[in-house]
C-alpha cells in the first residue's frame, strides 16, 4: 500500500513499480486497485487505434507534444502484441516517442498483450486507472495494430481516435463492420501521400451511413455526434492540434449530452461482467483440476462425448 501512496504523491519509480504489480496481477494488485480507485475518474481517456503502420505511435507523439504545450499532463499506455508461441514481445512504440523524453509531465508505459485478444492487454484498463489516479489529465491508449475486430478500446476510452492511411483498402473495406463503427474521431494520416483525398471521401460516405443508424453510438437523433474526418501528417505534426480540438469537442459533447455518464455505466458493467466471468472460471478450474480437464479432452477427442456434455459434467462436479 506504501507503493500506492508514493505513486499518488508523484514518485515516478513507485508509479512504474505499481504498474508492474497491477500488470502481473500480483498479491497486492487487487488491494492496490481498491485503494487508488476513489482517485480515478478524473482523466480524459483517449484511445488511438488503427491498422499496423498507419502512424499511431507517431501521432501519439505529436498529440502529446501539443497537449504539453498547453500545459496538460499526459500518460501514455502503448500496447504491442505478445508472441502466442513464446510469450515474448517486442515493444517498439517508444521509438516514435523520443521527443517526449525528459518531460516530467509525461509518463510512457509499454505493455504486451500477454495472450489477450481485442487489441489491449487484460490489465490495460487497470493501468489506465493507475495513471488516472496519479493525476495525468489525459491518458492516451495506443492499441496494437488493429484490424476489424479489435474494438476493446471503445469500452476503455471515453474518446476513440481511429487512424487510417491512404492505400489501405477500397471502400468495401471501409464498409465492413468493425473499427470505423467505434470511431469518435477519424484521422487520415500520411495526408501528403497519393490517395489521401480518396480515402477521406470513402470514409465520409461510410460515416454518413453510420450517422443514419444512431444505434452504434447511443444518444438521441437530434444531438448525435458525427465523427469528424481529419487529415494529418504525423511525421511533422501537421493536423495534430485539429485532432485535439476534435477530441476536446467530443468530450464536451459527451458531458453536455449525458453520454459521458452513460458510457461510464456501460464500461463499468462490461468490466464487472468480465471480471466476474474470469473469477468464476478461475475458481471452477481450481476446483476441477488440470487432470480432469485433460481426461475430458481425451474423451472428446475420442468422440466418446461431445464438448457440451463434458462441460455439463465439469460444472456438476
Amino acid at each position, binding site marked *: 500500500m506504501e507503493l500506492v501512496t508514493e505513486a499518488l504523491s508523484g514518485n515516478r519509480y513507485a508509479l512504474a513499480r505499481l504498474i*508492474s504489480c497491477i*500488470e502481473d496481477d500480483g498479491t497486492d494488485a487487487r488491494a492496490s486497485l481498491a485503494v487508488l480507485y476513489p482517485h480515478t475518474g478524473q482523466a480524459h481517456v483517449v484511445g488511438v487505434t488503427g491498422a499496423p503502420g498507419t502512424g499511431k505511435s507517431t501521432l501519439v507523439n505529436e498529440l502529446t507534444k501539443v497537449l504539453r504545450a498547453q500545459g496538460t499532463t499526459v500518460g501514455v499506455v502503448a500496447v504491442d502484441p505478445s508472441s502466442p508461441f513464446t*510469450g*515474448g514481445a517486442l515493444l517498439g512504440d517508444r521509438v516514435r516517442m523520443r521527443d517526449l523524453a525528459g518531460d516530467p509531465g509525461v509518463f510512457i508505459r509499454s505493455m504486451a498483450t500477454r495472450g489477450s485478444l481485442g487489441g489491449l492487454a487484460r490489465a490495460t484498463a487497470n493501468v489506465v486507472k493507475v495513471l488516472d489516479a496519479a493525476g495525468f489529465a489525459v491518458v492516451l491508449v495506443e492499441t496494437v495494430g488493429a484490424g476489424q475486430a479489435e474494438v476493446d478500446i471503445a469500452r476503455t476510452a471515453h474518446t476513440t481516435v481511429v487512424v487510417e492511411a491512404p492505400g489501405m483498402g477500397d471502400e468495401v473495406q471501409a464498409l465492413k463492420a468493425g473499427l470505423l463503427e467505434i470511431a469518435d474521431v477519424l484521422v487520415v494520416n500520411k495526408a501528403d501521400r497519393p490517395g489521401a483525398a480518396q480515402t477521406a471521401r470513402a470514409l465520409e460516405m461510410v460515416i454518413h451511413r453510420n450517422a443514419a443508424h444512431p444505434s452504434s453510438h447511443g444518444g438521441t437523433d437530434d444531438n448525435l455526434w458525427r465523427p469528424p474526418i481529419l487529415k494529418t501528417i504525423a511525421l511533422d505534426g501537421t493536423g495534430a492540434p485539429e485532432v485535439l480540438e476534435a477530441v476536446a469537442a467530443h468530450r464536451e459533447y459527451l458531458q453536455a449530452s449525458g453520454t459521458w455518464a452513460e458510457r461510464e455505466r456501460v464500461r463499468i458493467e462490461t468490466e464487472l461482467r468480465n471480471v466476474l466471468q474470469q473469477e468464476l472460471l478461475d475458481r471452477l478450474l481450481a476446483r476441477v483440476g488440470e487432470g480432469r480437464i485433460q481426461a475430458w479432452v481425451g474423451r472428446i477427442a475420442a468422440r466418446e462425448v461431445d464438448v457440451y456434455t463434458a462441460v455439463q459434467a465439469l460444472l456438476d462436479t
Partner: protein
Amino acid sequence: MSERLRILIAKPGLDGHDRGAKVIARALRDAGMEVIYTGLRQTPEMIVEAALQEDADAVGLSILSGAHMTLVPRVIEGLGEAGLDHVKVFVGGIIPDEDVPALKGLGVAGIFGPGANTQEIADFIRRQLTEG
C-alpha cells in the same frame, strides 16, 4: 521481480547502425522476454528515464562507436541516481578486450562482441536475473 522479464534495449551515442540491437531484441523476444526497444541516438538520460518508466529488469546497450567508456559509466551512474541499482546492465558491440575489465569494474554484468551466440546471450541474461 515480475514473472516476465522486461529488458530495455537501447542504442546510445550517434552511430546509426542498429542491426545488432535489433537482432538481440528479437532473440530476447524469442526467448520469451518482453523487450522494450527504444531505437537510435538515445542519451544516457533518456535510457535511464525509459528504464524507470518501464520498470525494466535489465538494460542492454549496443555501442559500435567506440564511445562506450564515456556512455556506459553515465548510464550506470544515472541508474544509481534514479534508485535503479538493481537493474543489470549488459553491453554489446565493438568493445576492445582492454576495456572489458574497466567496464566490469563499473558493474556491467555482461559484454558481448560480434560473434556472440544469441541463444547464449538470452540464457546468460535469464540466469543473471533469476539467480539472485
